[in-house]
């Protein structure tokens, strides 16, 4: 009963393909227009029994659907138009809707228009309504989403709105089928006695110009287009087909005279101002808000949460709470999972491999490598899940949006424009899209500076290492240690940013910033569930891939002997990998963690931070020194030894180094693409220097007290 097809063919007379021949060409046509996402397709589907795609985001209907509505007064052909915000065409969709409404020369022009107006977002919808009223087409206003509006305490007086619009207004809830009968009656009446709606006045400045132009419009043009719409379109400089040059020139002159001495020099703005004035009046007249207490309540909360003084401490306290809660709640789950994998699972796999006669190297890869590495990763699933849930709650409630204010103030310290904090905040998830995201900055210097700072933003991959190491060494205080790493990360971004600004990037100007804050609301379980799942899946997918790849690489390199020995039968310390790690190890002695296990982990960390944990597990389970699979005691023993009796400062130094040095190869590649080789290499050098200096400082100072 419906046919969906590209816009052009819809309006051609030769419709009625064999398979869709059910639409009666003689039936009156009614178009469904309105803003995106206001329930047009829902209404269309209810009325015609069709299945147009409906969803909770704007812009789903991209082609035009037609269907037959068996209305009480006879069949009506219903046309579901794509949603538009304006009749000033900015996209093909909008152009189509505009043409359907104004071009009488077009076949299939509707006899009446049902315009869906979202009662919960009246202003935006009324702006389009004002434009549609200018076309003079007989209208019925379907006031949708009245349930949402009611829930928000917004009441819209349909009768008064109807009087102002000069057309029937039918309050309805398309999703529940409420108000269909009233709509049926209103449309039947509009088809039987078509009447143009009222006309929103455009003010003493614009109206005379419109009148002057209207008097000169040629008959051919007014036969094809509604006169008022045509005058407005011509004066605001919109191209209209078939208008004689003389008329167009007159319109241009009239328009130019209107904006004489105006900053913006655009007559369309003058018209928009008048339409908004009309919208404002209508809203003041028809909308009543139940107890504005809610807004003032949220205003008051906002003032505290975004204040210059209390914003930052509250933000820090909230984030501290998140980390403490996460690490506390996840610790037993993680331990249990890891014990399960290290013990029974690894044992069973090892046994099975021996049984089928697999050699030691293969067992080494599967048991010590993949099972140990992936097992460590799986151990982090509860942690990540809890963390994602908490963040989703914060985000969904609208709090994180307020935190953006706090971050923005910090950005200003560095002299970066407000929007630079978009890539930096994204960097907390992953540095790679953050580097690519610097593209949104218009100024090249802003882009480069931000790109250099991104690696200091601690990404989610680094979080796993913090948690593993901190829970081994700091027990109950693990959450606080993790939190401290995040604070340090922010401090590094600001510190390095200030340093670079004083040296490489002098004299940059900022730009204004306005944030559109979402309202506070109670988080919904479904949204939190999906968000957590999406992020967890993405984390597992990237981390899983990275881990299997690096584990295999590490296994290969650690199976190749240096000097004597054969492939697969050499102590790790004497493999290519072990030798490389041992060569690097002394560099970390001043920082208190100069052991090859650590430098091996940092080495793979250069490739990807997700691999640090798996490499640690792998190197310890490969080297004999580490008993059977117990990671924590082995780690403790190592740090005790390398730090000369100050393991805690050494561990902190290790974490600090991990935070500050090059995040991963993917980030390096992204930087290379965005800012070129020289700055990328400079960046790597800077990261290593900063990381090393900080780590040494942390250990040397820390071991004085600890």
């Amino acid at each position, binding site marked *: 009963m419906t046919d969906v097809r590209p816009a052009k063919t819809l309006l051609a007379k030769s419709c009625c393909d064999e398979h869709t021949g059910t639409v009666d060409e003689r039936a009156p046509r009614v178009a469904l227009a309105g803003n995106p996402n206001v329930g047009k397709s829902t209404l269309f589907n209810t009325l015609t029994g069709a299945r147009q795609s409906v969803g909770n*985001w704007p812009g789903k209907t991209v082609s035009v659907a037609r269907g037959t509505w068996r209305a009480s007064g006879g069949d009506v052909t219903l046309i579901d138009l794509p949603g538009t*915000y304006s009749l*000033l065409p*900015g996209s093909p969709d909008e152009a189509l809707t505009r043409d359907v409404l104004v071009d009488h020369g077009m076949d299939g022009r509707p006899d009446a228009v049902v315009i869906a107006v979202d009662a919960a*977002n*009246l*202003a*935006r919808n009324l702006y389009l309504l004002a434009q549609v009223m200018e076309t003079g087409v007989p209208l019925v206003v379907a006031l949708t989403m009245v349930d949402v509006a009611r829930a928000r305490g917004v009441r819209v007086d349909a009768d008064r709105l109807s009087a102002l619009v000069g057309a029937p207004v039918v309050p309805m809830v398309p999703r529940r089928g409420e108000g269909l009968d009233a709509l049926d009656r209103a449309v039947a009446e509009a088809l039987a006695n078509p009447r143009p709606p009222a006309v929103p006045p455009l003010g003493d400045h614009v109206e005379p110009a419109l009148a002057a132009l209207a008097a000169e419009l040629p008959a051919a043009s007014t036969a094809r287009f509604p006169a008022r719409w045509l005058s407005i379109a011509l004066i605001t400089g919109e191209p209209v087909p078939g208008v004689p040059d003389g008329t167009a020139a007159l319109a241009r002159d009239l328009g130019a005279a209107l904006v004489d001495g105006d*900053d*913006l*020099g655009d007559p369309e703005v003058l018209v928009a101002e008048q339409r*908004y*004035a009309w*919208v*404002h009046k209508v*809203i003041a007249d028809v909308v009543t808000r139940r107890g504005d207490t809610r807004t003032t309540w949220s*205003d008051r909360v*906002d003032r505290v949460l*975004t204040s210059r003084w209390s914003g930052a401490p509250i933000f820090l306290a909230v984030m501290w709470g998140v980390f403490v809660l996460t690490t506390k709640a996840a610790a037993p789950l993680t331990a249990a999972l890891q014990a399960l994998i290290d013990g029974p699972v690894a044992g069973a796999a090892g046994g099975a491999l021996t049984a089928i006669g697999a050699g030691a190297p293969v067992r080494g890869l599967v048991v010590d490598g993949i099972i140990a590495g992936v097992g460590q990763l799986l151990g982090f699933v509860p942690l*990540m899940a809890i*963390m*994602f849930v908490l963040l989703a709650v914060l*985000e*969904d409630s609208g709090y*994180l*949006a307020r*935190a*953006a204010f706090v971050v923005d103030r910090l950005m200003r310290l560095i002299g970066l*424009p*407000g*929007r630079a904090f*978009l*890539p930096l*905040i*994204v960097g907390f*998830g*992953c540095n790679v*899209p953050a580097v*690519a*995201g610097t*593209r*949104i900055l218009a100024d090249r210097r802003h882009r480069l500076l931000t790109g250099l700072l991104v690696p200091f933003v601690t990404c*989610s991959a680094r*979080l796993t290492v913090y948690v593993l190491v901190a829970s081994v060494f700091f027990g109950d205080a693990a959450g606080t240690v993790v939190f401290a790493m995040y604070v340090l990360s922010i401090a590094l971004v600001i510190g390095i940013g200030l340093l670079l600004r004083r040296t490489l990037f002098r004299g940059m100007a900022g*730009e*204004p*910033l*306005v*944030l*559109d*804050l*979402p309202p506070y609301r109670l988080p919904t379980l479904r*949204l939190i569930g999906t*968000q957590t799942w*999406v*992020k*967890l899946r*993405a984390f597992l*997918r*990237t981390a899983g891939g990275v881990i299997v790849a690096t584990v295999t690489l590490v296994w290969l390199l650690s199976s190749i002997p240096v000097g004597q020995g054969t492939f697969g039968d050499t102590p790790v310390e004497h493999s290519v990998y072990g030798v490389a790690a041992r060569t690097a190890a002394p560099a970390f002695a001043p920082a208190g963690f100069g052991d090859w296990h650590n430098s091996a982990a940092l080495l793979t960390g250069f490739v990807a931070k997700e691999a640090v944990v798996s490499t640690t597990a792998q190197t310890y389970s490969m080297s004999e020194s580490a008993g059977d699979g117990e990671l924590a005691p082995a780690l403790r023993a190592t740090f005790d030894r390398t730090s000369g009796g100050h393991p805690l400062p050494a561990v902190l130094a290790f974490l600090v180094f991990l935070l500050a040095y090059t995040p991963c190869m993917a980030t390096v590649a992204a930087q290379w693409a965005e800012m070129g080789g020289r700055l990328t290499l400079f960046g790597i050098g800077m990261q290593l220097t900063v990381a090393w200096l900080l780590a040494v400082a942390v250990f040397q100072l820390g071991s004085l007290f600890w």
Partner: protein
Amino acid sequence: MSPLRRLLEEITAAHEPVSLEEIARRVGVTRDEAESMVAYWTRKGLLTTDDLTAACPATGCGGCALGRNGKPGCGPRGSGPALLAITRSPHR
């Protein structure tokens, strides 16, 4: 000056971060109207709106693959704050 123009002026003059709610109050319209006006100026090309989707602090996007349309970010649309910025000065 009309509210539509005032809104643009207020955004241009914002030296401190302010919320759209506050701008609406200064201009004397409802938040809903202000949103609609922002959309108007955005269509006109004088303003840009970037969805900041604050999902990302702390652990955010989880992986690298979640950017949308070449821009970073994740989470459902419109749940985060949006950044409004003037693309060109209204004063020529």
